[in-house]
């Protein structure tokens, strides 16, 4: 295979000021409808309707711009954002195609201009889609009911911890059951939400075959066990073949089992969480199901559970009545109430439903096959690059959708770190790769995920860029260390980011801390 030509890429850079540095006094970007005389006659001047103690005296210091200036500014910023417009094999996030047809649909008034408290008679369209999507996820997981209130994957994990609390409380066991078990490679959202919910967190260590051992689990399970929260596969990409046994062990001890199904892509149409024995699972609609990332949401962690846990679900629940009408059912007495206002990021659910229907069962299977194949294809090619090694060298079995690699050897040899390589790759139009969650068990990690979206050409280009940069690390390490050179801006100096006297999360803080530097 002859390597791809490195693209002569250069990011747009508009030398764009901050919006707060722009504008001119009295300029307007938006005008309000003027109050009709008939209204003024009745109520007088608005400001007099505010009690004097609560009248704002100085206007906020916001930019004063024309409408076009605002539009142009943010278009410049958007062009200065790579997003998925290069090649992004970002691990753990399953970079999917985000079908444009759904964007058009969700910005129509029949979604955008709905109020969640409208009478259900006026919400039949949206309720039908959400209900149908619940049905699709039930089919995919074997669970009994899904809710979409959680505003992301972590929020679905939090939903699980709330349900764990309510479940054990309802059986009078919560006082005793205050431990949640997870693994070192589980996503941080599992231990973090467990802790936030008030549980003690027990973390099983990663072992050489890519997961924690049955023995390690047995050693910590007890009558204090409230739940197991685990993803499978995790970033290492290996499917834990003992997962059914794990579930049995935890169930025997009286705990609940939650399947963080964020890495569902490689498993689609092969396993059903409920059949593996799990009490609940969550799907990431903004990842596996084609929802756009949005730079970090709006997201949905679709949370589904077996019949036994349904009474604990947050409300309201969407049901179909005997006449085929869709209704919003108020939550029952055991419900955890709410983890977030209303019933979720509805437009994301609509997109996910559309994506799933566009794929069909056959398409989902193809996507799983292609993703897993692409990962193994990449592995073959990546390991041919000197300096790239497997994250867990002893693992020989085929891995699922993504796998963690190490640049440790390259760093040892050249002093160029995985962060340097990540930066430098962006100089060729390649989005930053995923490194690893904290703490790093593997030196200089990186975790690419090819998914089913990207063409072989894209994947090859990605690999070739990596190979090129690894070679640069040997030939001209300074170029890599001082990178990027073709990006919007140059390498950030992060030294002040955690220093209270230097950080500035707002322009007013910056103006105060750096009075001299401001133009």
């Amino acid at each position, binding site marked *: 295979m002859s390597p791809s030509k490195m693209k002569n890429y250069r990011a747009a850079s508009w030398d764009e000021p901050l919006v707060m540095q722009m504008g001119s006094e009295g300029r307007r970007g938006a005008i309000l*409808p003027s109050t009709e005389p008939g209204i003024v006659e009745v109520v007088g001047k608005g400001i007099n309707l505010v009690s004097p103690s609560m009248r704002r005296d100085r206007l906020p210091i916001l930019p004063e711009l024309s409408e076009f200036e605002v539009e142009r500014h943010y278009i410049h910023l958007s062009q200065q954002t790579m997003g998925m417009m290069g090649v992004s094999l970002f691990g753990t996030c399953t970079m999917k195609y985000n079908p444009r047809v759904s964007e058009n649909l969700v910005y129509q008034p029949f979604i955008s201009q709905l109020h969640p408290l409208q009478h259900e008679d006026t919400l039949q369209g*949206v309720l039908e889609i959400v209900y149908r999507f619940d049905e699709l996820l039930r089919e995919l997981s074997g669970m009994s009911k899904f809710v979409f209130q959680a505003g992301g994957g972590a929020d679905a994990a939090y939903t699980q911890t709330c349900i764990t609390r309510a479940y054990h409380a309802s059986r009078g066991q919560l*006082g005793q059951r205050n431990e949640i078990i997870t693994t070192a490679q589980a996503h941080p959202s599992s231990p973090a939400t467990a802790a936030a919910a008030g549980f003690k967190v027990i973390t099983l260590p990663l072992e050489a075959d890519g997961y924690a051992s049955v023995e390690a689990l047995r050693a910590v399970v007890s009558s204090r066990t409230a739940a197991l929260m685990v993803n499978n596969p995790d970033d290492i990409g290996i499917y834990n073949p003992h997962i059914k046994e794990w579930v049995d062990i935890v169930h025997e001890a009286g705990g609940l089992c939650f399947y963080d199904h964020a890495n569902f892509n490689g498993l689609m149409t092969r396993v059903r969480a409920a059949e593996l024995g799990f009490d609940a699972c969550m799907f990431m609609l903004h990842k596996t199901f084609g929802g756009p990332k949005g730079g970090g949401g709006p997201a949905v962690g679709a949370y589904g559970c077996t019949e036994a846990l349904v009474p604990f679900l947050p409300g309201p629940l969407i049901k179909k009545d005997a006449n085929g009408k869709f209704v919003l059912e108020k939550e029952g007495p055991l419900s955890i109430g709410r983890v977030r206002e209303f019933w979720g990021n509805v437009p994301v659910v609509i997109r996910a439903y559309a994506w799933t229907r566009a794929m069909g069962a056959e398409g989902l299977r193809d996507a799983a096959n292609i993703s897993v194949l692409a990962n193994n294809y990449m592995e073959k090619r990546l390991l041919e690059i000197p300096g790239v090694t497997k994250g867990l060298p002893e693992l020989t079995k085929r891995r699922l959708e993504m796998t963690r690699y190490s640049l440790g050897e390259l760093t040892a040899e050249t002093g160029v770190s995985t962060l340097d390589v990540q930066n430098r790759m962006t100089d060729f139009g390649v989005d930053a790769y995923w490194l690893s969650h904290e703490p790093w068990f593997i030196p200089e990690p990186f975790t690419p995920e090819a998914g089913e979206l990207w063409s072989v050409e894209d994947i090859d280009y990605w690999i070739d860029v990596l190979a090129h940069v690894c070679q640069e690390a040997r030939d001209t390490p300074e170029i890599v260390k001082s990178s990027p050179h073709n990006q919007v801006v140059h390498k950030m100096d992060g030294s002040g980011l955690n220093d209270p006297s230097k950080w500035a999360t707002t322009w007013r803080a910056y103006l105060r801390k750096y009075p001299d530097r401001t133009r």
Partner: protein
Amino acid sequence: MTKASPTEPIAHPYMANSNVGNFQHMMKVAGVSNVEELFEQIPPDHITKREFNLGPVLSSESSLYRHMNDILRKSTSCEDSLNFLGAGCWQHYVPAICDEMVTRAEFLTPVWGTPSSDHGRSQAWFEFASQLGELVGMEFVGLPVYSFGTAGGHAIRMAVRLTKRFKVLLPRSLDPERLAVIKSYCSLPELAGYIEIVSVAIEEASGRINLEDLKKKLGTDVAAVYFDNPSYLGVVESEAKEVSRLAHECGAEVIVGVDPISLGILTPPSEYGADIVVGTTQPLGVHMNCGGGVGGFIATRDEERYAREYPTLQVSLASTSVEGEMAFGLTLFEQSSYGSREQGKDWTGNSVYLWAIANAVYMSLMGPQGFRDIGTSIIERSHFAASRIDSIPGLKVLWAEGFFKEFIVNFDKSTLDVEVINGRLRKLGIFGGKDLTSDFPELGKSALYCVTEIHTEEDIDRLVQALEEAVK
């Protein structure tokens, strides 16, 4: 290739390598002869036996569009009807440029990036935080959290960590939906870290926090007093300064929840004692989206004490290797759950970052005078509506003064329930106010009406006529 179905042996538009050539090429290079080999590590008894029925595949975009459109058209939107529902999700006008930006693929698709390669998005986030900081009068602002309620929950937990006290006071007027969220952030009594929520009464005459009851419940065991301004019931807490003073006297933190659209005319919370400001971002350029437009924020003074308790990510200005160039990097990443797992401050994850861009655009469009004007417009229109409704025989507006955007219409003199009246309004093409009857029985048969800048005099006339007819 992999397709089993003989009727559609064609590549799928969402999958570049679903054509025969690419798939087989990858198989060859990877040294795989049968795709099932790739799944060797899944034990056979884990593999499901039951087929998947997901309905007919709609891989043709035109079929998919038609299918979706046919179903979604069954709803009646707030453009089809005249809407007076608010209650935590508000109908404001969304400038077209907000939608333009959040649908641009570059903003829509990023996942993480680097400060150099997703620079534009990071700058937009910084502009979100900076402008919001101006509105609320605070210098440290985190990237958005899921919602107003979750912002409140996190803020309460910040206060608990700061004070090591485990009780918070909240007024009776709190949004029940938001309260339910906050409750879920306070754990349960059986567990360590449980936070007790104590409700403070409101004045019958004004709807404002009852200062006497507050004093009674305050003490050195109180971590925080939390209140919204304006409250869920629309009431402006004009004694906010006194509330803060009382709370601070006990060493409690003051957390104020705001609707930032009010802050062109209402005093920013920083000026009446708020330590932590939370609120909604939905009114700032995000559609209601059937409740899927909600978003929240947390802001404080730029003091290390507070900054070190944030559960969010936040971007900070930073320099680059080139003199004079600005970049934006994550500050205090360590303390997030990404940085420290269960040792982190609560947790974070995907949130509603895209809406932060809509918010930034919205605030830039509005500018100082736009916020002044929209606040004025809303307060005038809502008071006009209240006054007109109050004059309908048999109807009464509770607390007809001192509110912003929302107010309570009481139907006690009518023989009909709010639900019935709302049903009649619906037939006339109007979505009446949120029924409060079961959530606030002490207010009788009441409904919470929301009037914003989008409601014209004519719309309000129409409502008044419809109400007159409906209560007949």
